[in-house]
């Protein structure tokens, strides 16, 4: 009975919990509520993924209004996996957030922090699960608006969090508005907002200028949201100045949800036969992705603030994801979806390790890192392990992603791209090495009294590191789901 309603519960449970948490008097009560909800969301996404793998695509009609008139929630392998990433990361981040947030945010703001966190979770889960284009916009804005607030809450540590949140608000709103213009133009031509319905009607209309304009607006809008180079300018400051737990959560989930929406629109709705599909992928997304890989990694090498460095590295990693999808092959999409999952694990772990440093020292500049290998051995060991995964060492998830990406490039006959992927990994070696060098080969400055991070921070960090290694050794589950998702998106599912 309840199993039939899982798709809507996935979104409604955190949505209802958000206003409830306002009434919690103390931050710890709000935290407990949020954590409970997050565990429930994780359980629901695991159940959904199980059902999808067993029985194929699930469809849920809100209020029993039949699609395409009513809003439909549609779960297939692609979004079931993204739902799992979002709720899973949220559940790992929250135990970390309890200590970290108590340290970084004023007590009277803590309940409101968890309210915004729940809204952000709702928005991200909603935009991934929905099968309705306008509904996706609404959830996109719910998650964005709460994200701006979450980023601005870093103002206690550094006032630049405010300007970062403001810039993000302006850029994010432009991106979302571009998206909604595109959706409007689609509605104008097809008279429907249901994604499955759109996918049927668009090929029937064929080459049409309004549809092409809609395509352009949607790709640009989502490109801004996912920080596709050169529309990434909001990202570094937002990640660098947000509270540590927020950075972990956003880096691991927010851009991923936007990547998923882009995949859904490009492959399911417009489809490979759409007239501007191939030129966009070959002449726009592919070059931008390659430039992102190199430009952002190069900028990362010169950053003083290590949080900012990892933010630039995220832009490069998003380049890998976009590169994978630009091949428009099953292997290419598999690599994109695998990297969605794997990047969430590695960046989550890295930002968690940095969050522990920020908690002890107040910042995470390259100077602060000096000698940390001895002062905070567990934290820095986690950073090194996460860094190796980011570079793509065998036995870590990073290797699995790169392996599939290189395989996809070779399969498409683009061996220079495969070489570039490997070459750009070397840049990651350089920027991770800088930190390792400072942490292990420099002496700590005189009079450092801080010690290792508390277990409340270390356990979630090492949980993610463990996942990095586990899924790096036994990737059968992730590759199976990602492959299934790629086939669903390309419409070649058995």
């Amino acid at each position, binding site marked *: 009975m309840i199993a039939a309603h899982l798709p809507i519960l996935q979104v409604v449970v955190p949505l209802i919990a958000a206003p409830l948490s306002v009434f919690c008097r103390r931050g710890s009560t709000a935290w407990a509520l949020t954590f409970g909800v997050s565990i429930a969301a994780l359980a629901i996404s695991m159940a959904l993924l199980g059902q999808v793998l067993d029985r194929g695509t699930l469809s849920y009609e809100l209020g029993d209004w039949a699609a395409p008139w009513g809003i439909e929630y549609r779960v297939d392998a692609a979004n079931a996996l993204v739902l799992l990433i979002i709720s899973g990361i949220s559940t790992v981040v929250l135990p970390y957030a309890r200590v970290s947030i108590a340290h970084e945010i004023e007590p009277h703001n803590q309940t409101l922090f968890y309210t915004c966190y729940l809204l952000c979770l709702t928005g991200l889960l909603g935009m991934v699960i929905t099968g309705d284009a*306008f509904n996706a*916009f*609404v959830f996109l*804005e719910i998650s964005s*608006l709460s994200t*701006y*607030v979450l980023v*601005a809450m870093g*103002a206690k540590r550094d*006032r*630049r969090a*405010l*300007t970062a*949140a*403001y810039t993000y*608000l*302006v850029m994010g*709103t*432009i991106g*979302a*508005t571009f998206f*909604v*213009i595109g959706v*409007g133009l689609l*509605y*104008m031509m097809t008279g429907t907002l249901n994604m499955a319905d759109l996918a049927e009607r668009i090929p029937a209309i064929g080459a049409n200028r309004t549809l092409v304009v809609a395509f352009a607006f949607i790709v640009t809008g989502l490109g801004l949201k996912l920080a596709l180079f050169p529309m990434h300018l909001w990202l570094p400051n937002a990640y660098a100045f947000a509270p540590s737990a927020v950075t972990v959560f956003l880096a691991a989930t927010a851009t991923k949800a936007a990547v998923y929406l882009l995949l859904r629109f490009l492959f399911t709705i417009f489809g490979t036969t759409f007239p501007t599909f191939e030129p966009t992928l070959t002449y726009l997304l592919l070059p931008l992705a390659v430039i992102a890989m190199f430009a952002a990694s190069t900028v990362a090498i010169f950053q003083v603030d290590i949080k900012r460095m990892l933010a630039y590295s995220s832009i490069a990693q998003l380049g890998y994801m976009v590169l994978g999808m630009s091949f428009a092959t099953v292997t290419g999409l598999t690599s994109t979806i695998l990297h969605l999952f794997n990047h969430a694990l590695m960046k989550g772990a890295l930002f968690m390790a940095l969050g522990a440093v920020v908690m002890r020292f107040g910042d995470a500049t390259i100077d602060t890192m000096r000698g940390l290998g001895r002062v905070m051995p567990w934290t820095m060991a986690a950073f090194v392990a996460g860094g190796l995964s980011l570079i793509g060492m065998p036995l870590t998830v990073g290797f699995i992603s790169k392996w599939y990406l290189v395989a996809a490039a070779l399969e498409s006959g683009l061996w220079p791209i495969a070489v570039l992927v490997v070459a750009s990994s070397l840049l990651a070696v350089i920027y991770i090495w800088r930190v390792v060098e400072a942490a292990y080969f420099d002496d700590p400055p005189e009079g450092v009294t801080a010690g290792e991070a508390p277990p409340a921070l270390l356990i979630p960090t090492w949980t993610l590191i463990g996942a990095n290694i586990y899924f790096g050794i036994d990737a059968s589950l992730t590759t199976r789901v990602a492959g299934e998702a790629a086939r669903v998106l390309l419409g070649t599912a058995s």
Partner: protein
Amino acid sequence: MGVDDILGLFNYWMVIVLMMIGLYTVVSRGNLVKKIVGLNIFQTSVFLLYISMGKVTGGTAPILTGKPEVYSNPLPHVLILTAIVVGVATTALGLALVVRIKNAYDTIEEDEIQAADDEKEFGDAAAAEDGRR
């Protein structure tokens, strides 16, 4: 391009004009409040786009009267109600951030905020050098 293309598509021309004014304001103004105003104009143009597309010539409001009547498509209008709510929320949040920025920096001019940040990051020497230039 005939008269029909200009007058017949008047709403859509205005959508484009407003959109460009809004975007230009966001990009060109250094004052944070003016940027928010620009963002608002930009969003308003999209509201107009949606409302215009739902209009049916000679159609009335979609109210059940029992008689067969031509009525405008209510769906885009309802959609845009949601988008208006989103727009109000964005404006409110944007202005709230501007208030906080004003408290923290004592200015809402982008270049002055940038200068204050640079001074903090690179020390007074760099700021003085900037002044000489």
